[in-house]
């Protein structure tokens, strides 16, 4: 799988970003009622890079994500390029491995069949898809739960099933929308480390949304901060912390320094959102 990812990544020209957002806008409604959700976003994601994105709640992160996943067309003044090629409306569907905030497991499918969902949609024969998924079960800590139904699993396990579903849908770019948002702190930090292990093994390009600064720094090669609505990119911070990272990295001075800097930015943006929300008539 890693070979495959590298082979695909190899198709990009050296130095060329895997995905590039150029002046991306999204407006809803018309005339007086128009609201701008996303404004003038420029962002480049290199192949194999782990990019984390933070911003105050309601800043348009999810709108941005939906556009990258191809679920929502971006406004015509900008463009989304993949390997240098502009993507028309809907062209991105099926090209990005997307994991929404909630696990969205189907209650009528077993864990195994939930994991193979994307493969089935692709048209892979069920037997083959299952074989492929079964191989990943130990790695995702789900061995022995293949035939369980989602309602029999804990929140962390459900999230891992959803992640496995995303991983099995082998695309160059993985979009993760606050995947650990609903988990408790302990489970979450375990999941973070585990995600890094997996990522390091497979080296896929990841764009990860979160509202947790620690998480963003701990996971990312690059942290992108979005502003309050209308969302745009306020700053980008490259994280140079060595990999592989473990829990101890969180207490290093380098980490603290980055965190302090980002915290200030995010705080400022959050205050803006809060103020505008409370001042609304």
């Amino acid at each position, binding site marked *: 799988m890693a070979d495959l990812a590298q082979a695909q990544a190899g198709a990009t020209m050296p130095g060329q970003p895997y995905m590039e957002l150029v002046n991306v806008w999204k407006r809803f409604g018309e005339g007086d009622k128009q609201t701008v959700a996303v404004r003038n976003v420029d962002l480049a994601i290199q192949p194999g890079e782990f990019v984390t994105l933070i911003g105050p709640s309601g800043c348009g992160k999810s709108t941005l994500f*939906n556009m990258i*996943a*191809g*679920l929502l067309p971006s406004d015509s003044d900008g463009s989304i390029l993949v390997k240098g090629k502009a993507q028309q409306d809907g062209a991105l*569907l*099926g*090209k*990005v*491995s*997307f994991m*929404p*905030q*909630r696990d*969205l497991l*189907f*209650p*009528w*499918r077993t864990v195994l069949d939930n994991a193979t*969902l*994307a493969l*089935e*949609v*692709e048209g892979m024969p069920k037997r083959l898809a299952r074989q492929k998924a079964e191989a990943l079960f130990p790695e995702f800590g789900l061995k022995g739960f293949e035939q369980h*139904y989602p*309602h029999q699993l804990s929140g962390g396990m459900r999230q891992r099933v959803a992640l496995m579903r995303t991983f099995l*849908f082998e695309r160059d770019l993985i979009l993760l929308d606050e995947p650990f948002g609903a988990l408790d702190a302990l489970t979450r930090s375990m999941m973070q480390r585990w995600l890094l292990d997996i990522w390091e093994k497979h080296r896929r390009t990841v764009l990860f949304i979160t509202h947790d600064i620690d998480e963003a720094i701990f996971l990312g090669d690059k942290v992108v901060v979005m502003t309050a609505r209308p969302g745009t990119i306020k700053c980008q911070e490259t994280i140079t912390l060595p990999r592989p990272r473990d829990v101890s990295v969180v207490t290093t001075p380098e980490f603290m320094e980055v965190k302090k800097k980002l915290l200030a930015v995010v705080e400022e943006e959050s205050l803006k959102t809060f103020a505008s929300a409370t001042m609304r008539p």
Partner: protein
Amino acid sequence: MASGLNALRSALPVAAALLALLLLWQFGTTALDVPAYILPKPAEILATALGRIGFFGGELYVTLVEAVGGFLIGSVLGILLAVAMILLPVLEVMLMPLAMVINAVPSIAFVPLVLLWFGLGMSSKIAIGALAVVFVVLLNLLSGLKRPEAESINLLRSFGASRLGILWRLQLPAGMPALVTGLRVGLARSTIAVIVAEMMGAYSGIGQVIYQATAQVDSLTVWAAVFVASLGSLALYGVLVALDRKLVWWR
């Protein structure tokens, strides 16, 4: 073993309640000397039903064939309509208000027309049975198909799933519980509609038995026929409940 015991335990209250009701009925009618033409005693009804079991069985068979036939046709039509409306939202906008209005008309109001169109044979009963089912199934399934949130649909879209793929993998399974509810309501309705239509005009069937027995002041036969009809539709209902467990296995 344990499950058998459990089944027994859950069946006990209803058995007790039924027995109590029957005893109250039996002894109440005896004590108050209620004549059979007003309310026969359960023992007499049972004796009448058992005494002509072949006759009642044959008539019930006709009624059940009509009810099940109508139910199946109506269900398939309802399911097809719901699927068509989900795939082609224009259809929903156009047909839904009409479906709501027709659904608001009691299906018995169509009995006169159906009898004129399809005659007195089984086909008119099947038609009225189907009519009684189709809109219940349509309305329930449609709301079930719409149950999945946009997020789940988006997830499948991001996997590159087509409209049909989304329907098959997400909306249909998610709509199953609602469909089953619709089927249950529909089955009860189709049985009753068929019996009513049989009363209004038929060659045979439980409804016709009830009608003829009423005309000939034979109240025991009326009650026995009703008793047999209820047993029959309860049996159908049981089949559907079992089917429910198969269709909605994950609950």
